[in-house]
């Protein structure tokens, strides 16, 4: 266990179910790389995913993996962290899973600020159900359920996170592994709820937001030397600016976590001796006499 880890240590025997060229491959390998570089042990990693092509990722990371129901990865992951704070807890899922059916949990997981990481694999479509519009699809995006074009305004998940009080907000692109690895590492090391949105092209259904298109449109904000990722309003402005898609660590702040504010003991709850304190229990009955 002391030997230094490599991405291989996080590989599973299960062959992936993704289409050749799917952006999700990039996310997976960056994640393995980051875990290895952080020296995490598979046994200490709890990895929770949603439902979707992206959601299948939990089957490909050697860890304690939980592939739950659509849109609920965050509550599951949040509770795992509270139940055993010694674990490194990561949740991952698609733009539909996280921003459509999961939008409510997303907002609340953000403001709860539990020490965990959430990776949104954004392909701007519902891949697994064959390419309908998702909350991040462009207005006018033509899909089976929006033959006349998606009538809605795309949702900016990271801006939403900022509004909900996020303490770590970053965006990557699955064709830029180095940056992704660095970002995921920073996110995991961040004390609190960290969100990393990764632009992860769906090569089968999304013919608009392709790798080529992204290469055209992404811009690394951290490159701009005038950019300081500690101003919420500025970060919001950067995210809202029409046109290019900012990449990098867009906002970061230190704030007490849910664990801090509830005074959660250092001993993981999962390690408590349930038979202790019997006499204290009995004593409690006095209140009912």
């Amino acid at each position, binding site marked *: 266990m002391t030997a230094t880890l490599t991405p291989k240590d996080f590989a599973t025997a299960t062959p992936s179910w993704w289409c050749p060229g799917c952006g999700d491959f990039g996310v997976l390998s960056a994640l393995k790389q980051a875990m290895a570089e952080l020296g995490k042990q598979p046994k200490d990693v709890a990895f*929770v995913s949603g*439902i979707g092509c992206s959601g299948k990722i939990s089957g490909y990371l050697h860890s304690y993996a939980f592939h739950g129901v659509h849109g609920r990865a965050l509550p599951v992951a949040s509770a795992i962290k509270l139940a055993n704070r010694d674990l490194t807890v990561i949740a991952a899922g698609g733009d539909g899973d996280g921003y459509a059916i999961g939008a409510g949990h997303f907002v609340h997981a953000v403001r709860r600020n539990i020490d965990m990481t959430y990776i949104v694999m954004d392909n701007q479509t519902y891949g697994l159900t064959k390419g309908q519009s998702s909350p991040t699809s462009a207005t006018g995006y033509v899909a089976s359920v929006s033959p006349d074009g998606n009538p809605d305004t795309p949702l900016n998940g990271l801006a939403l996170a900022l509004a909900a009080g996020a303490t770590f907000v970053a965006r990557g692109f699955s064709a830029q592994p180095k940056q992704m690895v660095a970002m995921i590492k920073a996110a995991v090391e961040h004390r609190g709820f960290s969100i990393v949105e990764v632009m992860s092209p769906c090569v089968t259904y999304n013919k608009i937001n392709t790798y080529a298109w992204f290469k055209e449109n992404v811009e690394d904000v951290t490159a701009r030397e005038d950019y300081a990722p500690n101003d919420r309003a500025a970060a919001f402005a950067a995210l809202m600016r029409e046109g290019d898609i900012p990449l990098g660590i867009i906002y970061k702040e230190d704030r007490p976590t849910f664990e801090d504010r509830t005074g959660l003991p250092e001993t993981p709850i999962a390690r408590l001796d*349930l*038979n202790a304190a019997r006499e204290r229990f*009995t004593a*409690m009955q006095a209140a009912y006499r």
Partner: protein
Amino acid sequence: MILNSVEVMFGGQAGDGSLTTGDLIAGVFKRMGLEVYTYKDFPSRIRGGHTNYVIRASEHQNYGMADAVDALVAFDLEAVEAHIEEMRPGGFVVFDNTSETIPDDLRRDDVTWYEIPLAKIAKEQLGLELVRNTISLGVLGALIGMDPEIIRNDVRGVYQRKGEKVVDLNMRAIEAGESYVLEHFADRPSGYGLVAGDDGDRLIMMGNDAIAYGALVAGCRFMAGYPITPATDVLEWMSKQLPKFGGVVVQAEDELAAITMTLGAAFAGVRAMTATSGPGQALMTEAIGLAGVLEIPVVVIECARTGPSTGMPTKTEQSNLNHLIYSGHGEIPRVVLAPGTVHESFEIAVTAFNLAEKYQVPVFILTEQALCQSKATLAPLDVEAVEIDRGKLIDSGEVVFGEYKRFAFTEDGVSPRVIPGVPGGMHLAPGSEHNDAGVITENPRNRARMMEKRMGKLVSMRDDLPNAVLHGIADADIAIVGYGANRGPIAEAVQRLAAGGVLTRFLQLRTLWPFPEDDIRAFVRGAQHVFVVENNYTGQLMQLIRAVVGPLDALHGVRKYDGRPFRPIEIIDAVLETAGLTLRRAQGDIAQGDAAAEVV
């Protein structure tokens, strides 16, 4: 006069403090050595709106209301209008006539009327209208003979933290009430009396508190919940206590989060639960299926209220048994347990956590407003006797990766369960169908086998399920089946029917799923009449019984769906009428409410 058996109803407007006074009365009754049961009937609003609080005292615990109200303390006319018909002939009414008077058509002449300007006295003599509650306490005490010392001690206990002035004010209020009775009604006895006995070593507890306490003792250290009447008490109780024992409570953003958080905590190896009521339970449906297929032990408390939809949120009903048993797409093993008393609420909470972990299934505790928000006196709860059985949990040491299979096929269908952090146990837990190692597969043979493995647990668990309790005379011709809050009124009806010469037997179900088919078959055998008593319209329990014994002519449904619990007489009448029987002793004698009450 009637000794040691009285049902008091406190009636006024929500938020006027009658709940506090009701609790006080309950406490005094207990300290006088009597058995107490309380029932709250309040509206779904915060201030105003008719509310009433029933406190029943008797020599034996009946776990329910009597046939009728003996003493109505009415703070307004609305209370009289709403409940005058529920009064027992010979009972009495204390009415605050400060601003209202009783119209003749309501003035029943078979009850004694004590009209007292409570508010006026409170304002003029004590300077605070609110204390009319305490005055009424003095009045009631004087009328039925509640121990003046005990009253004063308890009142002091309640108001102490508000300072001596408040305590003193309330002492004078009691005084005022007592003396008013002496001065004006010396010649008008209430006909009820209490003989102070020994309180002994007893508790008085609410059903919800007993469940929460049981969960804590059973090792529950995580709860996620979303407020909803009548389940919020559990969330509140756990919020206060869990942190003291190293655990945590999360107030979730909704029930979808509450139940999935509960799954997450349980997956990580913590005994976890959530508590909700109908609407929230409906939202948890999908995740319960996930718990079933991932074989995660979770305990879900259902504090049932009146549906459908928002319905009557503060009223009682037994209309979601079907939901707990049948909801969800696909089939999973699940357990539904129903306590019938406060004491059983504690015991069943403990059992629920053991069953959940031993068989790795979701376990529902089904209770209802008339039980979970009702208080009752009971013997102390035996914490030492509680045993925690975590089943095939592997939370330490290590397992051999590759050999270890989270969903291994076994004799009893239960697979060894590792938790995150255990070396070698890494695996995928997928809501999709999977093989023994947790790898997703759609292979038909594996699928069939996995279904058999999971569902087989319903059979292997049989011997560990809470048994059904037989009340009454085992070989009586008349049989009654029921569960939950109806345990009280049915058992009382059985007792009183017997006293009246009609023998019956009553099977109180405590495990509702897997359905105790054998018990039902055996119990129904040879019965001339089988009455299925339940608080719903469609007869959900009846339907389950019919599937086991067939649609026998002998099966009769006794149902109530107006949001109110049964009173024993309703069951007695249903039995007698259907069976074409009359009581050897006249109804009046035994309609007394407490089978054990002596009639002097």
